[in-house]
């Protein structure tokens, strides 16, 4: 952190042009709630920081007929207080309310949480169940990838040199859909998740019409459940099916023992969190 240069612009194309030419080691910074901590703990050692928090193109929330686009530099507080996101993507709002504290959420951004690519990032399972796409921009180029293809491993993602996250496009949930975000941590606020899950489903005529489920903090990346939705789709949920689905949790996740928790605890707690969601069926 000795000779650090901050490069800030309110013009996206100007910043992208500078970024493309940059030959030094750099990091992108928005609210800084992760980057500053990594810097202070010497976990990253950039020569310069590109500050995207002044780019108005990255700070918009646009609501369309069937999707919502959220700029990467919109703060979590602003997403939480947005009435349309609360209405059409409540699972994202529930997840963001679990991040840090009000002080953190006033600075932290969705782009930062995803760009940091931690397996424990609370917004990521919610983005999974909302079928989010990540819009990436660089000088003269734009591309879009699915959230599950964006993150490659702990703190690794597909962003290449010169690229930044511009926005996220998520599904607008229907009024007949329900969703949950549940998290287990050491305390309510400011505790990184030991395990979390995002769940979205729709019932029609007592049958499960659709179900999206994802687990966080229990593998190198967030895990999208395939077996459990498969088990339920087209069926009437009953206690037997719920028991069976909970027993599938340990087959789908790959938790590890680390300083935050143990693999055994993580499996058990996710089984219980899932049961809590599924009990809503009956």
């Amino acid at each position, binding site marked *: 952190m000795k000779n650090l240069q*901050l490069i800030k612009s309110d013009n996206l194309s100007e910043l992208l042009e500078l970024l493309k030419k940059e030959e030094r080691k750099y990091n992108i910074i928005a609210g*800084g709630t992760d980057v*500053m901590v990594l810097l*202070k703990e010497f976990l990253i050692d950039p020569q310069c920081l590109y500050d995207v*928090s002044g780019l108005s193109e990255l700070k918009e929330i646009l609501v369309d007929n069937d999707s919502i686009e959220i700029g990467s530099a919109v703060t979590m507080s602003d997403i939480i207080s947005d009435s349309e996101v609360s209405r059409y993507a409540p699972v994202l709002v529930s997840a963001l309310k679990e991040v840090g*504290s009000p*002080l953190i959420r006033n600075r932290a951004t969705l782009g930062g949480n995803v760009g940091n690519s931690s397996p424990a990032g609370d917004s990521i399972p919610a983005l999974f169940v909302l079928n989010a796409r990540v819009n990436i921009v660089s000088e003269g180029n734009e591309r879009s990838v699915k959230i599950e293809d964006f993150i490659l491993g702990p703190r690794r993602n597909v962003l290449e040199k010169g690229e930044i996250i511009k926005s996220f496009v998520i599904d607008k949930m229907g009024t007949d859909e329900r969703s949950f975000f549940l998290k287990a941590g050491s305390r*309510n606020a400011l505790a990184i998740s030991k395990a979390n899950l995002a769940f979205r489903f729709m019932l029609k005529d007592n049958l499960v019409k659709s179900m999206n489920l994802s687990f966080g903090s229990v593998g190198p990346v967030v895990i999208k459940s395939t077996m459990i939705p498969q088990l339920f789709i087209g069926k009437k949920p009953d206690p037997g099916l719920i028991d069976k689905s909970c027993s599938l949790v340990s087959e789908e996740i790959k938790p590890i023992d680390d300083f935050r928790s143990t693999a055994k605890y993580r499996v058990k707690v996710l089984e219980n969190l899932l049961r809590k969601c599924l009990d809503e069926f009956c």
Partner: protein
Amino acid sequence: MKINVKVNGKKYERDVRENMTLLRFIREEIGLTGTKEGCGVGECGACTVILNGKTVNSCIVLAVEADGAVIETIEGEAKNGKMSKLQNSFHEHHAVQCGFCTPGMVLSAKTLLKENPKPSEHEIKEALEGNFCRCTGYQQIIEAIQDASGQMKK
């Protein structure tokens, strides 16, 4: 890098190193030492300041990022040597023991009451989630805020 900020209504222009945190800037460049450093990584809230109307952990904000900003610190609370209503309430309810968390607590409470003048106990707890107190057990702090918002049965 040259920055301009307004702290507690007073304008400052300073040339700062780009790796300087806002916390260090406020304490060492401006000389306002009411804002404390606790954990230094955005968890304890001792360094809380109000930046453009929003509470932030100043230990994980760079001073250069605050260029052009309006900042409020605990020193802006009392006017003409008289404590604010909120400060008085903290005093009366013994919401202060060692005092290290108090500047941050008062600023988080101030922001809460500005946005939500009659918060419920749950809303008060949520607003203070990012401010740790290791002395009081929080109860007196919650009562002080309830009283300051005119919700205390006496």
